[in-house]
């Protein structure tokens, strides 16, 4: 019996202390959040430079995507081939992508090769070569990718949504650029982007895995120490003010119509954010549980998938959703969708829905702890949105404290059926 009680407490305390996050700051002032985890001999690091495609020059859209794609194409004394072979030998992985508001790199390595891997990573960030041959190779690949995305109904409709919804905000530009802008990008544009945007002041780092805090602290300087300091105020991203509402119809021959929809939302650190997130979980977010899923898929068989989610980007949040349906079903589906949007605005959610959503969000957090890769990504996200290192402890309470009346008050302001913008792409003639 005593043993049983002891075990019980022991298990509980493990649950509570699941994530031991610490902030480390190196001598040369590089900051990172770290969770040590020695269960597998690997190290995962997630780093982002704030800005991403937002800082692409006009007429040179796609520059950040281009720079990201060149990060494993040769650096320092190593050519592209040598760099990649070295990565393979070390078991090091590097994934990078640019988005509307950040350029992100996911790094992983086998811990026994950490020192060499970190040096290689440093070289990629500090002294990328941008050799002519590799630039042309990547240019060609981005062009193919733009064309393939244009051929795809879903990605084409998403692009059309962004292009029109954000009006003249920089977020309206395609992250990959256009066929024209990609052709116009020169080596100097890539170097300029790297020089301006790879700085300590807009860098965010999350690390998890088989490395001690003190060693990681030293290694932070090896990797990032030589980055220029930069100035935080150069990385200001203008907020989204006006966005488009109404409908945009685009004719495309296809058996289905793809609809992307959305309207303005909240910043991630808005005090109403979690209430909106809970409400959206009930409306269109919660896997097989949402109202949109139940009403439109399960009851009426109109779609295979329908979803909505909060996109908390740096210029301000939006709520975004999408579905595809047979051309002749579009109007019926849109009517049902608008009805649900109005219903949640006017009636809010029920106590039971709130309880279920709360327990979902509290319970699901631990799934982010199941790999070093997902932990590193989580550490980065919490820093990106400035939620504070105590967020991991506070999070449950933030959720528990939400009352039904507060959530439903937020619903009233947040869901605005009249402001929805729909991009409707399909055989609509």
């Amino acid at each position: 019996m005593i043993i049983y009680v002891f075990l019980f407490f022991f298990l509980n305390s493990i649950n509570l202390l699941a994530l031991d996050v610490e902030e480390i700051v190196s001598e040369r002032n590089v900051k990172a959040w770290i969770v040590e985890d020695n269960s597998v001999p690997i190290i995962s690091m997630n780093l982002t430079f704030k800005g991403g495609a937002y800082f692409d020059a006009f007429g040179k859209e796609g520059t950040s995507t281009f720079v990201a794609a060149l990060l494993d194409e040769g650096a320092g004394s190593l050519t592209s081939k040598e760099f990649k072979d070295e990565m393979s030998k070390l078991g090091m992985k590097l994934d990078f992508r640019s988005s509307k508001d950040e350029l992100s790199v996911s790094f992983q390595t086998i811990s026994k090769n950490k020192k060499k891997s970190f040096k290689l990573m440093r070289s990629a960030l500090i002294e990328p070569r941008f050799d002519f041959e590799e630039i042309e190779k990547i240019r060609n690949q981005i062009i193919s990718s733009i064309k393939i995305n244009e051929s795809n109904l879903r990605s084409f409709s998403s692009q059309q949504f962004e292009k029109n919804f954000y009006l003249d905000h920089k977020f309206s530009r395609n992250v990959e650029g256009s066929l024209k802008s990609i052709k116009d990008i020169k080596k100097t544009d890539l170097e300029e982007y790297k020089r301006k945007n790879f700085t300590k002041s807009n860098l965010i780092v999350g690390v998890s895995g088989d490395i001690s805090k003190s060693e990681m602290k030293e290694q932070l300087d090896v990797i990032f120490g030589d980055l220029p300091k930069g100035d935080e105020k150069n990385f200001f991203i203008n907020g989204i003010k006006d966005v488009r509402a109404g409908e945009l119809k685009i004719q495309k021959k296809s058996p289905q119509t793809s609809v992307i929809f959305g309207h303005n939302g909240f910043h991630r650190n808005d005090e109403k954010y979690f209430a909106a997130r809970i409400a959206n979980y009930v409306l269109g977010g919660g896997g097989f549980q949402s109202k949109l899923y139940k009403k439109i898929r399960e009851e009426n068989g109109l779609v295979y998938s329908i979803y909505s989610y909060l996109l908390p980007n740096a210029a301000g949040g939006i709520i975004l959703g999408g579905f595809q349906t047979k051309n002749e079903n579009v109007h019926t589906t849109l009517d049902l969708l608008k009805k649900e949007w109005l219903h949640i605005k006017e009636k809010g959610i029920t106590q039971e829905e709130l309880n279920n959503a709360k327990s979902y969000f509290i319970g699901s957090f631990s799934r982010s702890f199941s790999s070093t890769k997902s932990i590193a990504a989580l550490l980065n996200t919490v820093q990106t949105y400035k939620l504070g290192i105590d967020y991991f402890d506070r999070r449950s309470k933030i959720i528990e404290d939400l009352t039904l009346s507060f959530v439903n008050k937020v619903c009233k302001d947040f869901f605005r059926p009249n402001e929805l913008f729909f991009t409707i792409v399909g055989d609509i003639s």
Partner: protein
Amino acid sequence: MKLIFFFLIFFSFTSLKSKLFDAKQFKLKNGLQVIVIENSRAPVVSQMIWYNVGSIDEKFGKSGLAHFLEHLMFKGTKKYPSGYYSKYISKNGGTENAFTSFDYTAYYQIVPTEHLEKIVELEADRMTNLTLTDEQVETEKKVILEERYQRIDSKPSAILDESIRKSLFPNHTYGTPIIGWEHEIKALTIDDVRKFYNDYYNPKNAILIFSGDVSLKKAKEYSEKYFGKIKVKNQININRIKLNDPILRTNIRINYDDENVKQKIWKRSFKTSSYKESIKNGIALDLGLKILTGGSTSILYRELVEKKKLVSSIGGYYQGMSRDKATVNFYAIPNENVEISNLEKQIYEIMKKSVVNGITEDRFILQKKKYEHESIYLRDSIFQPAQIIGEALSIGIALEEIESWDEFLNEITIEDVKNELKKFIKNNNYVTGLLG
């Protein structure tokens, strides 16, 4: 005495090291095979159940049935009506889904540890107590048709893939799309579904896998308590007709183009031997193909993307985990004005030359090393090991064989790799597709 002691330590050390996942297994009296992969780093556990049935088992005219049943498995039982299971998972922070393939149908849930027992109960319940109404079946049929329109009919590259596969497997049911042909989906009935469910959803025909924060003891307790009481419904033995395809003697080319296609894509699918036929040969082929065409350090990529600049990208991979014949799939994105016939000739020539002088000792060792690295990365996930084991067991590979994957790898010589590639290059069982 000392010597033996030393030997024992050495032995246990190597055997420990060589086990890929260190999974445990046991069998219930009713035939259900249970696998446990313990990993307690996070208070999360996944349950997967793999039924040894897929689109391969569908009778002619009934395509899409295995996948249809997969959707309907979410429609509830007498004790736990429609929506109960999903709601239980969701409100406790879990996640779930299911997938159907040619050879298997699998369902999984990932939940916080303390909810494991309940989901074992719920999964066992729907193995045998599924209730279906005509209305549920008819509405879900609409959903599946929308899924088909979304996944295949509104995607030019998927239309092409479907056609390539049908031509590569003209007689075997592997040529039939998993989701089914549109007209046959429309004709499926509730009776078809019920019969399929009764025939194949049996403890004897399933593999249950727990992965994550669970002990062998708990796994035994729960699976015996809930799955153990299920009787094998009909004492049927599943007799699969062993279908084969004729040798493809004609040169098969498939072209798909429509106004939405903006980029040409070249594809070629080969029919080849599977891991099930020989794990060693399968690994040797996989190794060789990775050197030849796996990613941006491969020989074909360096020759055709970087040196000759014929394509913006090229790749190929072996899909060897199948009950019957396996496939190798190549793709290339040709640059503008590149003659496809020239591209094909170049690919062939480079492959032929590489077998003689491209598969170097360095490349071979490096590729082996990559395998070792991958097996380390696999352990950083609770879900992936379950996925790999489930797939392999479903097609008929034993757990011991998966666990000793590294031993197979160690046995393989550079000559084995070259031999597999030589065979592969002579393989005329292929279909070529062109998009655009």
